[in-house]
C-alpha cells in the first residue's frame, strides 16, 4: 500500500518538475519585456545603462539554465520570488486571489455535480419521451455556445437592460458584504455552470442508459420492485463509482473553465491573474500559477483512479485496465471540449 502511494507521489513530483522546466523555458524564450511589468512605461525612457542595471537587479542577465537552477533552489525552500507587477511575494499575490476563484469554482463544481446527477437520472427516467428529447436538444445547443458570448448575453440582459446585477468585479469597492458578493457571483457562476452542466449530465445519462439495459433490472422488475427503487437504489449505485472518478477529473476542467469567465467579468481570481502574468511576462507569478494548476490536474487524475478502485472492488481485482480505460475515455472526451 505504501509502495503504491509512494510511487504515485514520485510520479506527481516528477511531473511537476518537468512541468516547471517546460513552462520556464517557453516563458523565457517567448519574446517580451518583463521590465515593462515591473517599471511600467518608464522602461521606454531608460538608457541602455539603466536597463542593464534594472535587469541585473531582477537577475535576468544570467544564462537561462543558471536562472532556472536559482529558481528551483528557491522554490524547494518555499521561496517562489516576487511578482514583477505587484512587487510582493508571489505566494501573497496568489493567496489574496485564490479565495475568489475557490468560491466561484467550488460553488460551480457543487452545482454541476448535483445538477448533472439529477438531470441524468431525470433523462433516463423519461427516456425517449418528450422531456428527455427536449433536454437533450437544449443541452446540445447550450454546449455549443462559447462561454464568453454567453457571458456577454447575460450581462446585456441582466446588467444593461434590467439593471438587476452588476457586470464586473467580485464586490463593490467600499462595500464587500455578503449580499454584495453574492450579487457579483451570480452571473459568472451561471455561465460556468451552464457551460459544464450538460457535458456531465450527458455522461450520467449514457452510463445509466447502459445500466438499465442489464439483465438484473429485468429480474428485479419481475420480482416486483418499483421503477424508482431499481433506478435509484440499484442502477445509480452501480454507476456511481465511475461518476465519482469522472467528477474527480472534472475539478481541473471546471476550475479551468473559470479562466475565460473571470476575464470577461473582470473577476479578480486566479484566471485573470494567470492571463495577466502570461501576457506581461511576470515570470515568477506565471511559474507558480502553472505549477498549482498542474498539480491540481495531476492530483485529480490520481484521485480519480484511486476513487474508482476503492469504491468498485471489481476494478482492483484483475480489471484494473477497465478503470484506466474509463478514466482515459473521459479524459479524451474532455480534451475534445477543452477549448470550449
Amino acid at each position, binding site marked *: 500500500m505504501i509502495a503504491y502511494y509512494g510511487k504515485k507521489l514520485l510520479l506527481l513530483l516528477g*511531473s511537476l518538475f*518537468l*512541468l516547471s522546466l*517546460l*513552462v520556464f523555458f*517557453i*516563458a523565457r524564450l*517567448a*519574446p517580451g519585456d518583463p521590465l515593462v511589468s515591473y517599471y511600467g512605461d518608464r522602461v521606454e525612457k531608460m538608457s541602455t545603462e539603466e536597463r542593464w542595471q534594472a535587469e541585473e537587479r531582477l537577475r535576468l542577465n544570467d544564462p537561462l539554465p543558471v536562472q532556472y537552477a536559482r529558481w528551483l533552489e528557491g522554490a524547494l525552500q518555499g521561496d517562489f520570488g516576487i511578482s514583477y507587477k505587484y512587487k510582493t511575494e508571489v505566494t501573497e499575490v496568489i493567496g489574496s486571489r485564490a479565495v475568489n476563484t475557490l468560491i466561484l469554482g467550488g460553488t460551480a463544481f457543487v452545482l454541476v455535480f448535483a445538477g448533472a446527477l439529477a438531470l441524468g437520472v431525470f433523462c*433516463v427516467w423519461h*427516456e*425517449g*419521451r418528450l422531456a*428527455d428529447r427536449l433536454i437533450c436538444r437544449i443541452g*446540445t445547443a447550450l454546449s*455549443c*455556445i*462559447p*462561454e*464568453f*458570448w454567453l457571458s*456577454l*448575453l447575460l*450581462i*446585456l440582459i441582466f446588467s*444593461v*437592460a434590467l439593471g438587476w446585477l452588476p457586470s464586473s468585479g467580485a464586490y463593490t469597492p467600499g462595500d464587500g458584504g455578503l449580499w454584495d458578493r453574492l450579487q457579483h457571483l451570480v452571473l459568472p457562476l451561471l455561465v460556468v455552470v451552464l457551460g459544464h452542466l450538460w457535458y456531465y449530465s450527458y455522461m450520467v445519462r449514457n452510463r445509466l*442508459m*447502459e445500466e*438499465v*439495459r*442489464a439483465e438484473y*433490472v*429485468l429480474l428485479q*422488475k419481475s420480482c416486483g420492485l418499483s421503477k424508482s427503487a*431499481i*433506478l435509484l437504489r440499484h*442502477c445509480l449505485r452501480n454507476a456511481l463509482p465511475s461518476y465519482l472518478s469522472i467528477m474527480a477529473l472534472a475539478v481541473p476542467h471546471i476550475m*479551468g473553465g473559470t*479562466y*475565460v469567465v473571470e476575464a470577461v467579468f473582470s473577476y479578480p481570481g486566479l*484566471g485573470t491573474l*494567470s*492571463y495577466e502574468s*502570461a*501576457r506581461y511576462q511576470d515570470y515568477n507569478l506565471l511559474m507558480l500559477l*502553472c505549477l498549482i*494548476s*498542474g498539480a491540481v490536474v*495531476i492530483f485529480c487524475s490520481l484521485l480519480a483512479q484511486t476513487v474508482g478502485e476503492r469504491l468498485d472492488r471489481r476494478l482492483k481485482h484483475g480489471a484494473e485496465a477497465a478503470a484506466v480505460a474509463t478514466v*482515459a475515455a473521459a*479524459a*479524451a*472526451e474532455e*480534451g*475534445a*471540449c*477543452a*477549448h*470550449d
Partner: protein
Amino acid sequence: MIKKRMTSPSALAAGKKPLLPALFLVLIVAGCLCCELFIPYDPAYMDLAHASEGPSRQFLFGTDTMGRDIFSMIWYGGRISLTIGLLATAVSALLAVLIGACSGLAPRWLDGLIMRLTEIILSVPNLLLVVLLQALWQQAGVLSISLVIGLTSWMSIAKVVRTEVRQLVHSDYVLASRCMGGGFFHILARHLAPNFFSSIMFMVIMNIRGAIVAESTLSFLGIGLPLEIISWGSMLSLTENSLLAGCWWIIVIPGLFLIATLMCITELGERFRGARSRRHSNL
C-alpha cells in the same frame, strides 16, 4: 403487455441522416465563399456617420461602433473563421496522428515518456499555452493563430491514436508488412490509419468546433486577430463599448451565426460517434 417505446434520441438519430444541419452548413459555407456576389457594402469600410446604428432597411443587421455593416462583415468574416477552424484542425490532427503513432510503435520506455509529456502539456491551462505561443509572432495573423490553436489541441487525439496503434501493432498484417520492408509512413498510411480513423473522426470534427470557438475567444480577449482582419471573433471583440451603450445587435447577431455553425458541426459530428446500442430499456 410490452410497451413499445422509442429507445433513445441518439439511437434514432443514428438511423436518420442529419439533413437539416448539413443543408444549413452548406448554406453558410457557400454564402461565405461567394459573399462578394450579394453583400451590399465593403465589410472593411468604416462609415463613421452611421456608427452603432440598429438594424434597419439600409443596414440589415445594423452597424458596429466603427460604422461597418454587420451583414457584410458576417459573410466575409465567416471565411476567416472557417479557414482557421479547418487549418487548426489539420495541424492538430496531423500532429496527433504522428505523435500518437510514434508513441504506439516505440519501445515501452519511450512510449511512457511521450505519454507523460503529453499529459504534462495537457495539464497547463490551455489559455496560458496559447498566450505564450502567440507571443512568438509579433502580430497575430490567420496563419499564426491557426498554428497556435493547432499546436495546443492535439493531445487528447494523440492519446486515442496511441491506444489504438498499441492494439493494432501486433496484428499479423502489420508484422507481414514490416517483414516485407514497409517503412513507418507506409505502415501508418496503409495499415494503421484506416483502422483508427473511425475512432478519432468524432474528435477531429469536434476539434473544428473547438478551434472556431478558440479563435473567437482569443480575438475577444484581444490576443487573437486584430480588428482589421474580420472574423466572427474579431467582430465580437468590439463589444466592450457596445455593451454599455446597449447596442445588442453587435453582440447578438454575429454570435447567433457563430452558434448556428457550431451546432451544425456538432450534429454532423454526432454521426461519427459510433453506433449506440439499440436495445430496449429493461426499466
